[in-house]
């Protein structure tokens, strides 16, 4: 995705959601042809014995895109982030201890997985119908609800999308190319949009009164505010945007090669166990995730094309 150099990582995943169709479609086709030239990875029923093979070697290769806080290499040179940490815990429980990171462009993750360059994608990748045509997903381990960054005290009383209506002179900051400006379009509120080139200037914009709010995922806003703790701003309660009666999810999970259902199901079982025991939240909390990001959505629900 080097085509969008000037957009910060967390905003980039915003429009990835919107643009999933193009990416998954185009790159999936590439992945298909690459896979043919390699050993057949999906012949046996349910993906065969990949899990057993991983257990024997004790190694799993993990594809990730360097993108904080979802999956990134930290200052000590180790792979960490929300997705890798959860995957590490689950594979440990499955009896695979050695975690081999494989850095990839975000857009190359799906073809790379299909070509057998790694065994699982742990990048917090949003589960979208077009991607589900290329690979299979675990159930999501988070859902990213939206929120508003507002001056402390929330003078405009913004809580949900409905609050944006009937507020004369309201200016809603969005990021250039991000999915939120699409939401405003669909609601017929595009006149309210003030488009900032990146998160940092969005925050400055709210501080300077250039916009009344910055509209982004709660995760990104918390992350941003964490870097500007002095700013007299606050993040509102996260909410799932509803447009024309349809809830808009941004839920991320782990990708497996199509056909590897046995590995995926074993992974899912452990993931559900982590959710039940609230261990999941413990693992992802250091990366800015909260109760609001926890979800019971399933991959099946998210793979179904929107009506």
């Amino acid at each position, binding site marked *: 995705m080097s085509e*969008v150099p000037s957009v910060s990582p967390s905003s980039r995943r915003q429009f990835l959601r919107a*643009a999933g169709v*193009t990416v998954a479609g185009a790159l999936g086709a590439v992945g298909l042809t690459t896979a043919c030239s390699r050993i057949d990875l999906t012949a046996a029923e349910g993906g065969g014995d990949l899990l057993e093979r991983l257990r024997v070697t004790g190694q799993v290769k993990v594809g990730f895109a360097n993108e904080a806080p979802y999956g990134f290499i930290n200052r000590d040179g180790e792979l960490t982030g929300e997705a890798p940490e959860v995957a590490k815990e689950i594979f440990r429980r499955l009896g695979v201890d050695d975690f081999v990171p494989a850095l990839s462009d975000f857009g190359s993750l799906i073809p790379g997985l299909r070509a057998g360059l790694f065994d699982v994608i742990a990048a917090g990748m949003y589960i979208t119908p077009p991607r589900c045509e290329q690979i299979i997903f675990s159930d999501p381990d988070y859902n990213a609800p939206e929120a508003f960054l507002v001056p402390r005290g929330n003078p405009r009383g913004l809580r949900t999308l409905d609050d944006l209506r009937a507020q004369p002179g309201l200016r809603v900051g969005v990021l250039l*190319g991000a999915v939120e400006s699409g939401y405003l379009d669909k609601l017929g509120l595009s006149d309210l949009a003030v488009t*900032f*080139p990146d998160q940092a200037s969005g925050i*400055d914009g709210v501080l*300077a*009164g*250039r916009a009344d709010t910055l509209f982004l995922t709660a995760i990104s806003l918390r992350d941003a505010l964490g870097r500007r703790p002095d700013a007299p701003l606050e993040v509102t309660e996260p909410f799932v945007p509803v447009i024309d009666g349809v809830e808009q999810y941004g839920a991320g999970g782990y990708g497996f090669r199509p056909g590897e259902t046995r590995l995926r199901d074993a992974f899912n079982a452990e993931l559900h166990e982590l959710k039940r025991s609230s261990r999941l939240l413990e693992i992802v909390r250091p990366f800015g995730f909260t109760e609001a990001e926890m979800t019971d959505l399933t991959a099946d629900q998210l793979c179904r094309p929107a009506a």
Partner: protein
Amino acid sequence: MNFDWRAAWDSVPRLLDGMLVALQATVLGYLIALVLGLVFALLRRSQQPWVRMPVAVVVEFIRSTPLLVQLFFLFFVLPTIGIEFSPLATGAIGLGVHYATYTSEVYRAGIDGVPPGQWEAATALNLSRRRTWTAVILPQAVPRVVPALANYVIAMFKDTPQLTAITVLEGLSVARSLGAETFRYLEPFTLVGIMYLTMALVMAWLARIVERRFGRVRAV
């Protein structure tokens, strides 16, 4: 890379909106640059050091800092002390003031280029200071710098994408936005390139006309 004509066609209306914004910012900014530049040039020739010096400092300061930094201060910092212009007005002022420092140097060169004999003649005729400037010096100084001044309108036009930083969505930022939405950059970038080229060529052509019309020093 294949060129998708349909995607290209669909992006035209939004791109044209963006180009209109770029044009507005350029026209407004250029007017400011033309007038303010002359003011700077004249003030820098003031015989009062307390006028001359501060103006020189301001001009050099603005000329030696990036436009982007100035836009940032105009847009994000001025409102915190109660001065707030709309994003487009802020952009036009930013461009205008920045380019005024360049045009002031152009005017200065034009004024310096007027032969000393003209000054002496004005003195000999006992013309007032005001009349010396308006009737003798400027009518000779300005026409010779018209080509140089016209250059800056095109340079300024191509600087308008920097206004993205202050939420003004001109052509190029609309193209970037379209690319981010559709993951197709080829079509919007090609089109916006053609639009900039076309408009810059038209500006150059207009400048040529202005030059031919006013760019000759009349025999005094």
